């Protein structure tokens, strides 16, 4: 039985990932209840602050994906309210959530990450799109991967295999955000490594390998059960798996993250892992990667979530 009194699971929000967040929140609440924890689930609306002030929870589990859940905003508010929560603080979130910034930080720590260029929409506006796009293709080569600099669930992301596909990919990306991260696309094995810190330092859970049926891990492949095959642990040679785990732990430390994170990696044909991005509020749905990794490690998700909340609560 946990020492926790009542805890709050935050889910929903106004980001594009609201639906996923609601599913994550339901799952976390369910596994916590199975451990006897008293759980309340709330959306982020005008009633949130008054309700926390009226009855402060022992700790908060933030399952808000995208937007204010990952950019540090909600965590700043929780700090203002002196309510402990699971996960990284606002400053670390801000850095980690901005993919180009996170790439720059981990590169400084010696991690490999695909070459890329980050450009806001205004730059194309000021300088003319075609000249800039042509230069990008010349410099980075093809294929490319275009995604919004912030956000998740592959929304607005696409692979560009021919130069003439790039403008449409940019339009698709700018539908979801005003800054685009254009990366050299590494053909390889997609792997996600979750990191948890249960008080003894960050530890990587087994890597999960992702094999979408249609080759692309897009929104449908992520959230339709059966459309993607997962291998947990990933089918990697031990030394390659080890380097993926080390990469995730290094990213967690480099970015100053706390309690939990998930690093998305691609392993190229030679077995070299590349850092793609890190998530400070990893998905917790039935088709999400952290719960799969926990299962592969024989860790009960309810126990894990409870322990993370206890650690948060003890920070006070």
């Amino acid at each position, binding site marked *: 039985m946990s020492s926790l009194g009542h805890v709050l699971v935050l889910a929903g929000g106004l980001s594009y990932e609201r639906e996923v967040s609601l599913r994550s929140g339901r799952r976390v609440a369910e596994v916590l209840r199975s451990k006897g924890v008293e759980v309340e689930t709330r959306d982020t609306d005008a009633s949130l602050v008054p309700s926390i002030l009226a009855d402060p929870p022992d700790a908060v589990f933030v399952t808000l994906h995208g937007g204010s859940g990952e950019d540090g905003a909600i965590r700043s508010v929780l700090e203002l309210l002196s309510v402990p929560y699971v996960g990284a603080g606002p400053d670390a979130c801000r850095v980690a959530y901005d993919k180009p910034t996170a790439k720059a930080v981990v590169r400084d720590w010696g991690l490999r990450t695909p070459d890329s260029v980050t450009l806001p929409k205004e730059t194309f506006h000021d300088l003319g799109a075609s000249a800039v796009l042509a230069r990008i293709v010349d410099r980075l080569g093809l294929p490319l991967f275009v995604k919004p600099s912030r956000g998740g669930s592959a929304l607005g992301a696409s692979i560009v295999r021919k130069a003439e596909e790039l403008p*449409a990919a940019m*339009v698709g990306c700018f539908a979801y955000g005003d800054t685009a991260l254009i990366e050299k696309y590494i053909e390889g*094995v997609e792997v996600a490594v979750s990191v948890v810190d249960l008080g003894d330092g960050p530890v990587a859970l087994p890597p999960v390998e992702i094999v979408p049926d249609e080759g692309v891990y897009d929104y*449908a492949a992520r959230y339709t*059960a059966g459309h993607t*095959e997962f291998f947990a642990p990933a089918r990697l040679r031990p030394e390659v798996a080890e380097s993926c785990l080390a990469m995730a732990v290094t990213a967690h430390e480099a970015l100053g993250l706390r309690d939990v994170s998930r690093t998305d990696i691609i392993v190229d044909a030679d077995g070299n892992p590349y850092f793609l991005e890190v998530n400070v509020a990893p998905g917790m749905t*039935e088709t999400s990667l952290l719960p799969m990794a926990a299962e592969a490690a024989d860790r009960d998700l309810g126990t894990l979530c409870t322990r993370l909340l206890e650690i948060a609560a003890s920070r006070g």
Partner: protein
Amino acid sequence: MTGEQDHGRTTATHGSRIDAYVDRYAARATGMVASEVRALFAVASRPEVVSLAGGMPYVTALPLDVVGELVADLVARRGPVALQYGSGQGDPHLREQICEVMRLEGIEAGPDDVVVTVGSQQALDLITRIFIDPGDVVLAEGPSYVGALGTFAAYQANVVHVAMDDDGLVPEALAEAIEACARDGRRVKFLYTIPNFQNPAGVTLSAERRRRVLEICRRAGVLVVEDNPYGLLGFDAEPLRALRAEDPDGVVYLGSFSKTLAPGFRVGWALAPHAVRDKLILAMESAVLSHSTFTQLAVGRYLETQPWREQIKAFRELYRERRDAMLDALQNLMPPGCTWTRPAGGFFVWMTVPEGLDSKALLPRAVAARVAFVPGTGFYADGQGARQMRLSFCYPEPDRIKEGVRRLAGVIEQELEVRDLFGTGHGRHRPGVDTPGPDLA
């Protein structure tokens, strides 16, 4: 393991697919996948967002206290009947009352030919079930009601769209479509049409065209399925005579109390030629045994004791004000190049955005600007509709409608800038279910 091209992998084993039954679903479940667009609609349900996406009737305008008393009285006085199974065809008294409602649109019919269904949506399902074999052709207006297209897809029908203009279905296009199917040896089973204030286009089939459409279908031996949920919600004139009023043998008529009373009762009906009716009753019984006796009797009591014609009139006034608010706002705020229909009733305006824009690609930006609509592709079975969107005026108050249109206009202007910047729209989408759930549809 050897070689440099193995991605650092060990020998393959079987992975997990989360869903243990993934290889056992029927072919018709193939399109049932998670979709980005549906995810965006999750945000649209928040109060900050002006939803021009939903087709929900404004039930708040009903005298809810009166409805409450009526329901309580029903349980108190007729509980043992209301809470019992009923007949597959539906409550006989309600069927008589339904005939009275249909008389407003010129239909003369007896209660024996009416089958009460779970909304007209179930009538549509039953009709499709008894007529369609996989691959059979259903003719439908382009665009057409998303819920109907979903039903047709579930029975693996092949939908052929027929063009519309401001006067509704184009008879020449209908004749051509029937001929083309005949030439290709494809069997056309029925024409599905929403003649009044069509969902999503908002247009109405003119009186003159009604005769021609019926004549074309009669000659070709094609049954007409007339879906008429909005017929009594005209703003400017008396209801037109129903297609069924002109051709009792060639038309199955679908009606509903969802818009004239409340969708929560789930009471709709089908009026069909005798032989079809008999099959519908059997299909109904095999699907759900019987409709809810409770809600049928509640609707019956409402019709019996309340001034329902006046209530419909009140709904008409309310929706007319909202339609006017939307048309005014569109006129004042939309950038050049946008065009839209001007509905004389019902719930919906159908808007076309300028060349090079894609309404589905606009949706994330719209949601970020706190306004939602339904992209046009959901209303076609064949991928058309990329430049169209459905805007509904039934649910938000007039001021909110104006605010929603203002936000949407801003989004379209931004998207025009992006189009001009990159010289292209965003045209790559995964096919599949991409419309909101029933509480938003």
